[in-house]
């Protein structure tokens, strides 16, 4: 009886281990979470590999990866963290690439409020302007470039409220605490999302492209799964999903004209 129990246990553990081998751990910047969930859903339809997603801020992931976190892929919200990891030697060489380019929008949760946005910003007929912290979030840095491009930095500065990231800028606006906010277009688009209020899509020429880079990490050397998933990200199907969520693709940058 005891022997049987042990055999069962060993068999089950072996099974668990073989399943484990099919798991791919991926760290994803919070702003890309909805898009990534759709991508993974599509990927797992045809693949045996299972993608285990962790969402969070890129800065925290950087610190965790440096301390040996078991992620095989890292989709950052910027280029700085993958770049730093590369310099730290924690990245598989030449694996870094731009998987998405973010679009900025100025959003209000009230209908028509984002119309004639430049006049509104100039005259200050709003209570607060939410932006992602420019020091932390590429979307925040781009927001400041837009304001400076419009010559509105000084006019609006007193009304800025900074969120830790675009997700928080979104919360400030959606909860009605800020009339206007610079957020990611991807937060407004995407599948099954109800459009609320009004927004102004910021023309691309007003800020540096918000490039989001991904890297294959050293821990991916042992397994194939991470590479298989990366190959999927490069397929047209995956690229279309990413575009659907309001991101630009790096290879389409030159062909697509500004809106």
């Amino acid at each position, binding site marked *: 009886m005891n022997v049987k129990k042990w055999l069962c246990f060993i068999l089950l553990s072996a099974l668990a281990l073989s399943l484990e081998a099919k798991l791919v751990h991926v760290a994803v910047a919070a702003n890309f979470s909805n898009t990534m969930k759709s991508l993974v859903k599509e990927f797992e339809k045809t693949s045996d590999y299972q993608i285990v997603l962790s969402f969070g801020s890129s*800065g925290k992931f950087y610190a965790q990866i440096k301390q040996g976190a078991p992620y095989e892929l890292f989709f950052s919200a910027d280029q700085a963290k993958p770049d730093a990891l590369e310099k730290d030697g924690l990245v598989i060489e030449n694996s870094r690439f731009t998987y998405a380019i973010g679009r900025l929008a100025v959003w209000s949760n009230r209908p028509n409020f984002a119309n004639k946005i430049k006049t509104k910003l100039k005259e200050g007929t709003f209570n607060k302007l939410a932006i992602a*912290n420019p020091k932390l979030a590429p979307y925040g840095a781009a927001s400041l470039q837009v304001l400076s491009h419009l010559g509105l930095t000084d006019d609006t500065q007193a009304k800025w409220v900074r969120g830790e990231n675009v997700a928080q800028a979104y919360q400030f606006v959606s909860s009605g*605490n800020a009339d206007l906010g610079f957020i990611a277009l991807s937060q407004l688009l995407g599948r099954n999302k109800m459009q609320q209020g009004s927004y102004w899509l910021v023309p691309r020429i007003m800020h540096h492209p918000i490039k989001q880079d991904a890297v294959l990490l050293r821990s991916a050397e042992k397994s194939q799964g991470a590479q298989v998933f990366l190959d999927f990200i490069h397929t047209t199907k995956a690229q279309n999903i990413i575009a659907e969520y309001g991101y630009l693709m790096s290879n389409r940058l030159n062909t697509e004209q500004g809106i």
Partner: protein
Amino acid sequence: MSLSDGDIATIWLTLRLATTVTVLLLIFATPVAWWLARTMSWFKGPLSAIVALPLVLPPTVLGFYLLLAMGPNGAIGQFTQSLGLGTLPFTFWGLVVASMVYSLPFVVQPIQNAIEAIGNRPIEAAATLGAGPIDRFFTVVLPLAKPGFMTATILGFAHTVGEFGIVLMIGGSIPGETRVVSVQIYDHVESLEYAQAHALSGVMIIFSFVVLLLLYTFQRKGKAVGMTYGR
């Protein structure tokens, strides 16, 4: 590795916030603790539970609901707007209110325990000697419950200094208004400025250690002079 002007501004703001919150909480929590310690009412249980509730929710979640409640469409927001005060998020006083909610159990409970430990006898004895209720509170309860008040002050202050999640949610990181030390350290870490993060954290830890050491030393001396009556 030195502190920037921005770092120093966050330290002053944090001290101002923690002091304001601690003083207001002592004023507000003492009657609550007094009532909880002395009452026989059925409402003691529910009120104790309400006081302890801020411990249950994670601070960022609590902050999120405060953001909604204090916003223009929330109950507190509607109330402050009707008073002509505007809304509280993104202001210093918004942080004060939120911190008071967050630190409430840490101030009420030590005071409540200390008053309960005194028991009825000293208070009744004072009453027979002709001391009025206010006199009894200041000359009997306050000296006897002093260790409890000290603990409440220390916990309330330290807890507010260390507060992060709520401030992150409702603060908006406005320099000199809502950007406190914990948020500044977090910003440094997130932007990979680890040296600045270490410096600021180091200063805060040393400062807090010194303050706590002084308070505890002071408290020990108080006890040694004979403050342990009734305990």
